């Protein structure tokens, strides 16, 4: 457990969260401050003991929750949201949506969030890729060749006979 007092924890968390949000694209200081306050008010004392990770996780969970990302993309989407792209793209572009008390966000914001998800790979579309045979040619292959040659010979002989009228 961190040895800092709760008030010092709060200040530390506030600073880290502020710089984190700045890095994510929230350039307006006032908006950052409002968002920080709101996040901190939702954090427990235990979360405050590890300020940065807790604040970040809180922010991510909150965004995922209000945007309904979870229902759209499943667990992977929430995890992806943790990557920060979502926050960088959406929080930076629509800070007021995130700062509003209402939990509704605009459709454009929602779409931007979905598009901003760091999809590492598209959904699989499985197809079979069967192993090919590399069995060596064997005696039967030579036999087939001989049989073909014999057949050709017989046909050729028959043709010669039919031409010569014998």
């Amino acid at each position, binding site marked *: *457990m961190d040895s800092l007092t709760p008030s010092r924890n709060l200040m530390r968390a506030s600073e880290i969260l502020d710089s984190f949000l700045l890095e994510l694209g929230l350039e307006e200081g006032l908006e950052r401050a409002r968002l920080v306050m709101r996040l901190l008010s939702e954090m427990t004392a235990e979360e405050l003991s590890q300020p*940065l990770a807790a604040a970040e996780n809180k922010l991510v969970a909150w965004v995922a929750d209000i945007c309904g990302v979870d229902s759209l993309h499943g667990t*992977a989407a929430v995890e992806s949201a943790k*990557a*920060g792209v979502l926050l960088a*793209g959406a929080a930076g572009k629509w800070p007021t949506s995130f700062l509003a008390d209402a939990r509704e966000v605009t459709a454009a914001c929602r779409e931007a969030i979905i598009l901003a998800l760091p999809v590492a790979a*598209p959904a*699989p579309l499985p197809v079979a890729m069967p192993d090919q045979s590399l*069995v060596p040619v064997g005696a039967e292959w030579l036999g087939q060749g001989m049989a073909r040659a014999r057949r050709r010979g017989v046909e050729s002989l028959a043709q010669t006979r039919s031409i010569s009228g014998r």
Partner: protein
Amino acid sequence: MRRLAISGVDPMLRRAAVFGTAVLTTGLATLELRAVLSLNGLGIFEALLLVLFAVSFLWISLSFWTSLVGFFALLTRWRPQGLARPKPGRTLESRTAILMPVYNEDPREVFARVQAMHEALADTGEGEVFDVFILSDTTDPKVWLAEQQAWFDLTRARAGQGGAIYYRRRSENRARKSGNIADFCRRWGARYDFMVVLDADSLMTADTLVELARIMEANPSAGLLQVPPTLINRRSLFARMQQFASALATPVLARGLAFWQLGEGNFWGHNAIIRVRAFTECCGLPNLPGQAPFGGLILSHDFVEAALLRRGGWKVWMVPELGGSYEESPPTVLDFAVRDRRWCQGNLQHMKILVAKGLHPISRLHLAMGVMSYAASPLWLVFLLVGLAAAVETHLAKTRYFMDHSPFPVWPQSDPWAAIQLFALAMAMLFAPKLFSLLAILLDGRRARLFGGRLRATGSLILELIFSTLIAPAMMLFHTSFVLEVLIGRDSGWGSQRREEGKVSLREAFDRHRAQVLAGILLASVFIVLPQSLGWWFSPLAAGLILAPLLSFATASLKLGDWMGRLGIFRIPEETEPLPVLRRAREILAASRVSEVEGSALQALAADPKRLALHRALIAGSGEMPAPQALVSTAVSRLEAGRQLDGKEEAAVMTDLGALDRAVRVLSAPVPTENPGSRAAA
């Protein structure tokens, strides 16, 4: 199954002309040697020499006639018939995946190249139909984290511009690179019409990528188009020489090959576009029966995949006229040899596949040529040893002047002039591909300027020929030892290629070339018993072997390479007129913010929540199975007990979200501090 529509006569005539002249030349040269050797009667040594000479000479002869054809094809701007060319500027209707398989490579370099290609594709207006897949088989956990960071930065930098950029790491590297590509085909291949397979050091221009997709659209029977890559981007002297030789000879040799291969071409493993459906249907590679090195996983999968595509009725074309296809050379002789060790095993393994049912004769020829490219070395070595033994025997044997009680003496005969002529012929044919290539440059003022001018190009080739002649005996012994190692069943394993430059010490060079130096000294000592006239024949061989470590050391030098570069020696067109995509890749690399991971990978994750979040996101969304539970549990327990984990254990923990959380908790826990009082008391 598709049926090929190439007219039967034309390919037959082309092939008969090239192979017929090669066989004829070999026959004539062998008869000439027979005449030289039989002056004093043909013994067992002489007969053996003739056989070895014929086999080895056929190899040189085929290369000579191919390059001669390529030379005229280059001059006449010939293009392979049967491959339809689309109208310029036609909008693409297909979707293409660009695959970049990586295995513990430097992520900064890989992603710089990817970004440069992605940007260039976007500039063509066709970027939307090209998605990039970075298919990682990386096992080093720190490189893995760096790849994730590089991918994350790249997706942010390129968001909304061009196609998507995907990243996938396999937990288990089943079937190495071929398995990596097959995994893509099985999971996402159905989303794409074509895939461009690259290597970690590949670079292709956007124009070439777009044109490849257009040609594939215009040729529904084409299964694969190979654009022969040329070497770029290196600074060491050895690599510069390789780059120069590649830039010089590839246009000629590739056109020569394309002339007789037509739709029965080959796959070189990367820098090629492939029809995904054809590949998925025809190229699932089985394990060969038996143990490695001949059995098990097919190592050099590219030749086999081309043969299987062709067996499935798809055409495989070489398109040398496109250009815009690049890769990097190993930086030193020793790295080159290490790569050859892998390739040698892979190619010799093809002896088993050579006789597989249903393959096209030209596919069998490609496989045989792959085998021969390594088997030629022991054949040449035996040829030289037999020649040496015959010379020693002749010299030491008592000359008999009177036979069968005849009163007339029989003088020993020799025809040094005929022997010199034959030697000159062999050397001329050996060097002909490069000489034809130089001639093609000398005849074209614009191309000559790109190589630094006619004088510099000629001087560079002379230096390159001297070097390649001197290093050839060492390479011959390397290849011979590789072949023997494979034959006695020693597996080469799968190491990543060293791509950084300037890393060979004199000690390492002597250590690695020790056997060759000894062989050179032994050979030189034989000269003591031989007359001087015979000694001269073997002197380049002995000199090359004795000098091998020095050559290896000197040519690894970046300083020498840079010096040559300043003088304009070994200059290549891409240095005279740098490609925008290459220039951009260098700029991106210089500005890269992806740094090496400090400490262990798990420590880096524990210390950086954003890195951890990204990692968790990628793991959760990957669909990959975690590492075996036993390995993960043991690793976490060891970590909780305060032990250090090795790379494999760390990587295992990093595949499992639950284990990762436990590991991060352990590593994030505050370190208990000692009681100051007790320390003071102590």
